[in-house]
């Protein structure tokens, strides 16, 4: 066949594209279990770092991560009732296969959906840190839309369920070098000690620069120059998850003095 004929061009391009797609997809399929296993360890690493059980800046071995994780207990919250669900086993929600059968998805009213999720699960695992303290830290999963992608993270609250102990974002596809600064430790440190709710229990948390003397200073985290859309997404997702459709009913029960 003539090398310069259109038929040959189409043939060569089609065959190359087909072979390359087989190569790429088989690499993706065969390597996925390894990548997934690593992602699981990373997730646990973040939970352990947020637990306050270890020095959060230390470079931990896998063994240290897994052993510290023994003191972090997943507990299931029923977001419809705003309380711990005593009947269901949290472990069954950690396994994707059984979780799919048990889980119910609830649609989010548009006016409350600042995280742009449309649906959220009814049951969600929070992680309780087992220490001698009567009011242990609780780690809440949070996620929502950033600029390009869904941002996943964990936010740890001190025992008063108002003061932010620590925060991480462990998965996102934000712009490299700009939006991905939400993972920068120097920025995340600025969250520590900030509060979510004011004295009246109103959600005040927001992100953006503010004067130190301002009464809102305790509820404000610094923004990131150049990454406004990503950071606004982060603020919105935190406000959704700690708002009336998220964890707020659960948290207000404990403010009313209910037992854990």
């Amino acid at each position: 066949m003539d090398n310069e004929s259109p038929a040959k061009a189409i043939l060569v391009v089609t065959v190359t594209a087909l072979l390359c797609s087989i190569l790429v997809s088989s690499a993706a399929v065969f390597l996925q279990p390894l990548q997934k296993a690593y992602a699981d360890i990373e997730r646990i690493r973040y939970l352990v770092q947020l637990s306050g059980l270890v020095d959060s800046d230390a470079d931990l071995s896998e063994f240290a991560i897994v052993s510290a994780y023994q003191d972090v207990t997943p507990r299931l919250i029923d977001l419809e009732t705003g309380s711990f669900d005593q009947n269901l086993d949290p472990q069954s929600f950690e396994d994707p296969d059984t979780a799919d059968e048990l889980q119910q998805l609830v649609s989010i009213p548009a006016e409350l959906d600042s995280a742009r999720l449309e649906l959220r699960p009814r049951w969600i695992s929070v992680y309780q840190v087992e220490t001698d303290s009567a009011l242990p830290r609780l780690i809440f999963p949070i996620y929502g839309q950033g600029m390009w992608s869904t941002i996943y993270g964990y936010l740890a609250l001190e025992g008063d369920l108002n003061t932010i102990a620590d925060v991480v974002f462990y998965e996102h596809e934000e712009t490299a070098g700009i939006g991905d600064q939400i993972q920068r430790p120097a920025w995340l440190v600025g969250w520590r000690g900030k509060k979510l709710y004011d004295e009246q229990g109103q959600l005040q948390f927001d992100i953006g620069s503010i004067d130190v003397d301002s009464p809102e200073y305790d509820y404000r985290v610094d923004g990131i120059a150049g990454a406004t859309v990503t950071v606004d997404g982060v603020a919105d997702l935190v406000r959704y998850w700690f708002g009336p459709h998220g964890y707020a009913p659960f948290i207000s029960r404990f403010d009313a003095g209910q037992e854990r």
Partner: protein
Amino acid sequence: MKTRLRRALVTPLVDENPVTLHILGICSAVAITNSLYSALVMSAALTAVLCFSSVVISVIRRHLPHSVRIIVQVTVIASAVIVVDEMLQAFAPTTSQILSVFVGLIITNCIVLGRAEAFAAHNPPGVSLLDALGNGLGFSLILCTVATIRELFGSGGLLGREIFTSAAAGGWFEPVGLFLLPPSAFFIIGGIVWLIRSYKPQQREQAEFEIIATDSVRNR
């Protein structure tokens, strides 16, 4: 024949180095050379992609219609890059996070497409592989040299091990922050280019335009 193979492998190291003579692949050379470890991984990734794509393109070179050759070449290169990226994510996930987009950007590294178009598309697979390997090593050589200088003077260590004790830890060495910033890679690469061209004047480029002093300038 043997000298031709040898030539394909050895000349890209210094005489026809892709970075210092052709000034290709500067983007990644600037971006990831602040530590020797990431430079080594990047070098390995680029050399692997370059070898794979050169051999494949060389094998199909007689069936490549002129009109669509670049598209086919880029498809092969992009596939190789994605496979390398997936493998890094599976076997060296922390490194993959450090290199972030720069592994994906190997697709646009001019060295890879340059060798495919200039060499592999006209030569048999064996010599194309050696040419790819030579160019990969030439790139690696510059990358690792730059990274060694930057990490040593920027943070006082190599591969994360301390070599100069920093002043903060009671030693004498004051880390030079500039070396960790991308512009320092430009200075260092520029310095290497200057050194090589002083030693091998035949590498100097002819000026495209000659600056002629005109009468009006002379009379001023």
